């Protein structure tokens, strides 16, 4: 009887340990810092230089954001703020890009009239790495 109780307790602790391992282990990996969101895609056209903000506006298509459906749209590369990673061919057309962006931040501004106006984009790249032109 006594041994049976010990067995039950031991089994309980072993089960608890496994559960802990399963729950905690995934959090040992590095994670993106919110509110950064992942993106991947290919620029389609020569990037547009933003005359006020010294950034580059680039139209991506296909553009993979958080969802599985490919989209199209512009993202902005800011030379000083965006962290560039290998192969550094950022905004080069037909070159695969992968990185993270902040949605809704307008980082491309063009000078018109008495000031600057945002050239709208989906967001600003925070860090980005590239493949080689023509790569997939």
């Amino acid at each position: 009887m006594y041994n049976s109780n010990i067995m039950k307790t031991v089994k309980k602790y072993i089960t608890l340990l496994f559960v802990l391992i399963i729950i905690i282990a995934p959090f040992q990996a590095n994670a993106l810092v919110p509110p950064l969101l992942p993106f991947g895609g290919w620029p389609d056209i020569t990037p547009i230089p933003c005359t006020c903000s010294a950034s580059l506006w680039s139209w991506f298509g296909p553009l993979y954001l958080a969802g599985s459906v490919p989209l199209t749209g512009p993202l902005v590369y800011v030379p000083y703020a965006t962290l560039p990673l290998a192969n550094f061919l950022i905004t080069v057309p037909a070159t695969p890009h992968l990185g993270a962006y902040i949605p809704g931040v307008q980082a491309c501004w063009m000078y018109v009239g008495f000031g600057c106006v945002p050239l709208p984009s989906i967001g600003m790249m925070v860090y980005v790495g590239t493949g080689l032109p023509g790569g997939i």
Partner: protein
Amino acid sequence: MKRKTIFLLIASFCIALIFVAYVFWPKPSIEKIESLDFNNCLVFQSDSVEKPCYIDRLSPGQTNIPTTEQNIIIIPSNEAASSTVMVPSECTDSASVFERDDCVIKKAITSKNTGLCTLVSGSLAQSVCLRDVGGSVTLTIPIQNQSYDAFLRSTSSVLPSTIQNTVVSSPNTYSPLPSAQTDTRFSADALTQRFRESPLSLFGVSPYQVKPGDTISLQGTGFSDTNDVHVGGYTITVVSDDGFSLSFPAPSSLGEYDVWITNKNGSSQVIGRPIKIVVTTNPVPLPTVLSVLPNPAEYGDTIIITGNNFSNTNTISTSFGIMENVASSGGTISIRLSDMSFASQIKDIPYMKGRKTPILLYIKSDGGVSKEAYTFDVQF
């Protein structure tokens, strides 16, 4: 039964031990170089004799390489600190920076050019320390961890440079960085820091027309902890928390003023491109967009924008480009999408055929730029 119990106790102890080891065992680290101790360390390997590029890891006056490796600016030695560096698309020259204690070739170069280069760097994903770049150097030393490579894009105006000397480092000049798991470059704080260290620029002012004492918000880059905001003849010192925005009260005197900022990063003034505000007792409110029809629109459609506070002439900015001097009539504006500045380029993208894409729209009127982007769809 007793043996079984002991066995289970030992087993559970082992599992607990494994778990503890798994959690607390030091993870494999990726090392890179934190600092280099060369005098005015210029580190580069050019791939082209005709168009060698100049890589200066140091901003003028600095004596150590910044610990944050990103966004290194190449500043020709005969040129003062530059405020604007663009990455020209035609620049494809490559160079590699080799910074490891077990694999080092250093050359210092004095540039004769006045063009600008941007060195983008920071790869932690290379497996070979030194690569053959354009046949100039071939040396491959396998490394255990990671190398630190860089890619240089130069302008076509870069002139031949002179190699001054070759420096071979000693391992003692390096100190390892913390592991990749503590690499803060990918954090939001690092982004803020990069904004703070960017060249000073000012591009967003909202609202454009204000009453005396109203709060004006500025957006730009390179805003430091303390910034002097100049409004005409007035100066006010303002703190920026994030490096790209700040707010300040409008002056009490009425009038139209140029706005610019000065701080430790320089001045935001650009000759010929003033950023203005108007202090008035009766400011024109910001424009707002209420609807865009048809939605979804087709590429060739004329869209009708309905909203408030439009002026006689407005600037329309969409994901298809910018259109200036657009007249409004009774709170509506009509424009043809295909007339936008980049519309034809986007239409010609093969991937766009048959797709529906969301388009963002801003309007700039006499009151300033609409606060929020209005989104509508366009069917290709």
